[in-house]
């Protein structure tokens, strides 16, 4: 009989995987946020002692990588960083073969960042260990949305009725996609703002309670939270946007921040480019929570890893 390849394994991701916010249940989001509040990297119990967590990074990262690593180590786990350069990935090894290899060397979980949307889903369908999405192409960045939610809740009572302005390159932003799913789910009203190249009309279909505007004043009026985004030059395939025009219309200045509520907070997933999407004055200003976000990334990711490896008690 002729040998045939098995049909594609379309298994469910292993328990504890975190692939997207869109498909994460409300109660899981709330329990992760609750768990994150109890996590303290300086006084952590070694919940993940002897667990091996591989950080598989196909794209550059400072914040996400270091905070996942510190989160894992704070919980007593062993971490290994695998990057595309200097690994077999460079030699043309497929994503799945890399996954099988990491599983074979004993990985208990894989944290993956990848330039292709859906790469973590592919890996999760074929591996029996949790896969955590640390950013996949333009798709989602769930841990960032969770740490942003964590940060917002430190300053606001709840998400319900919050006015959130997200300004900048929405199209290329995985952070925005995850944030829209999460925040709209809990009743926030989100205004997406930017030029048509960055904020296509179709963006409003992503979740409920979303609207699109081209006018920054309209987005900012009455806002409780201002979320800024970097212009992603690496994803601007052929798009021509005049930076000076962008700065004139959409740069966050101290004067513009004043259009929002007096207690509004300013957020940015980083890396920030001072002088482009925001002024240094805003980045360092009293309403900025940009550094807090980075700080909150560690307990949030501790919660994600603890949940992934079944020690979320």
């Amino acid at each position, binding site marked *: 009989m002729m040998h*045939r*390849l*098995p*049909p*594609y394994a379309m298994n469910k991701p292993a328990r504890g995987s975190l*692939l997207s916010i*869109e*498909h994460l249940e409300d109660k899981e989001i709330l329990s992760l946020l609750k768990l994150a509040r109890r996590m303290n990297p300086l006084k952590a119990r070694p919940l993940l002692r002897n667990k091996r967590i591989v950080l598989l990074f196909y794209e550059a990262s400072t914040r996400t990588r270091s905070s996942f690593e510190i989160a894992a180590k704070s919980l007593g786990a062993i971490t290994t960083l695998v990057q595309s350069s200097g690994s077999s990935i460079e030699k043309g090894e*497929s*994503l*799945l073969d890399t996954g099988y290899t990491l599983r074979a060397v004993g990985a208990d979980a894989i944290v993956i960042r*990848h330039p*292709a*949307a*859906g*790469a973590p*889903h*592919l890996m999760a369908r*074929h591996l029996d260990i949790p896969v955590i999405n640390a950013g*996949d*192409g*333009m*798709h*989602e960045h769930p841990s960032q949305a969770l740490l942003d939610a964590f940060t917002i809740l430190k300053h606001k009572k709840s998400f319900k009725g919050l006015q959130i302005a997200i300004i900048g390159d929405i*199209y290329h932003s*995985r952070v925005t*996609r995850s944030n829209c799913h999460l925040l709209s789910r809990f009743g926030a009203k989100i205004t997406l703002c930017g030029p048509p190249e960055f904020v*296509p009309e*179709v*963006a409003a*279909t*992503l979740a409920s309670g979303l609207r699109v505007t081209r006018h920054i004043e309209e987005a900012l009026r009455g806002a409780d939270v201002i979320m800024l985004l970097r212009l992603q030059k690496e994803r601007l*395939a*052929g798009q021509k946007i005049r930076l000076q025009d962008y700065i004139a219309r959409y740069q966050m200045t101290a004067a513009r921040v004043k259009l929002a509520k007096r207690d509004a907070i300013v957020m940015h997933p980083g890396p920030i480019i001072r002088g482009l999407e925001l002024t240094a004055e805003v980045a360092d200003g009293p309403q900025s929570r940009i550094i807090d976000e980075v700080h909150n990334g560690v307990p949030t990711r501790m919660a994600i890893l603890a949940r992934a490896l079944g020690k979320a008690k």
Partner: protein
Amino acid sequence: MLSAKNQKRESATLLIKGGHVIDPTAKINALMDILLRDGRVAEIALPNKVRGSAEEKFDARGLIVAPGFIDLHVHLREPGQGYKETIATGTAAAAVGGFTSVCTMPNTAPVVDTEEWVAWLRHPERGAVVNVFPIAAATLNSRGAALTDFAALQRAGAVAVTDDGKPILDDEIMRAALQLGAELNLPVVQHAEDTRLTENASMNEGPTSFRLGLRGMTAAAEASIVDRDVTLAQQIRESRLHVAHLSTSDALKSVRRGKRAKARVTCEVTPHHFTLLDENVGEYKTDFKMNPPLRSAADREAILVALADGTVDAIATDHAPHATHEKQVEFERAAFGITGLETALALAITKLHREHRIPLTRIVELFTAGPARVFDLRGRGSLARGCFGDVTIFDPKKRWTFEAAKSRSLSQNTPFDGWQFTGKVVATVVGGRVVYRAD
């Protein structure tokens, strides 16, 4: 296994008895008996009125007997990509799907751009079990720069020319292709996609592509090329334009415009485009990735209307087998294309006939008379006396479940694995010989 002698005897005369014959060309829609002799239709007559005798009989009671199905658009991957499919395996899958003739696309390795390769494809050593009609490249190596020798390719047996997968963007090259095609009465098949607008895109542009963070192909990237091509076809007397795998509402408007103006413009639609939507890609399922991509509900609705009202000339599968390792990768990196030969009729009956009430006569036309006209396949697509003895016998009520693992194709990249269908091919007859019979 039949001996060669038995096979020969089997092919000499075959009586297909008691079936309901649908032959749109001959305007037959009634119980008829058909006698095939020496590879041709010898007699077609009311039940029990066939005069000649037959060595073999096929009891077709309760079944539809149709002219052999013709698929205008398949990728059988040879020469050069036998790990995906071969002419032998691809035509075996065609026979299971009821196709007695398939037209092969030239985007192989190397590209079929010489008469030698056309002859090679038609050579008996390829092991084809159904008729193979090669479509040759329209430009050398499908680079879109210099036209191939249409006359020589046609003499060698090519039924059309195309650069499928690599659309002809240059206006002057397309004009020249249609002009030369007009002189030779040879259709030019266009894969309509303005690739300048679809760089790095892997699915339809819309809410789903935005949600998934995938770059989208706009409907305009297809429609703009169809619009230009139809305009050229209207300008060039006697030119023949065939729009491959049409997938958008806007492209249909251009085709209608051309047809109203009596230009020789034809188009085909695939089963997956009349069945599925872009949102079915789900969470990056690469078996739902093909080019043109699955489109919006409005596009599918327009296609269903055009299938019913006669605007669409043929259902073609765009059977595009790929190996597992080419599909089991990141969505954006996965190969475009799905297999389709074994599920086409089942989808047409299940979706078009049962769900959308398109009559079986029209469905048969889309698989037979329609495609035969598009490429001028003389003696095919009809069961009139003297036509080739190509017959597809199917049960329009049979319920069954498609299992990709049991496919005759070398590849299993189908979105329809495990689907329950109504309507199944019972037997496929090529040149008077039964090449497939369902268990």
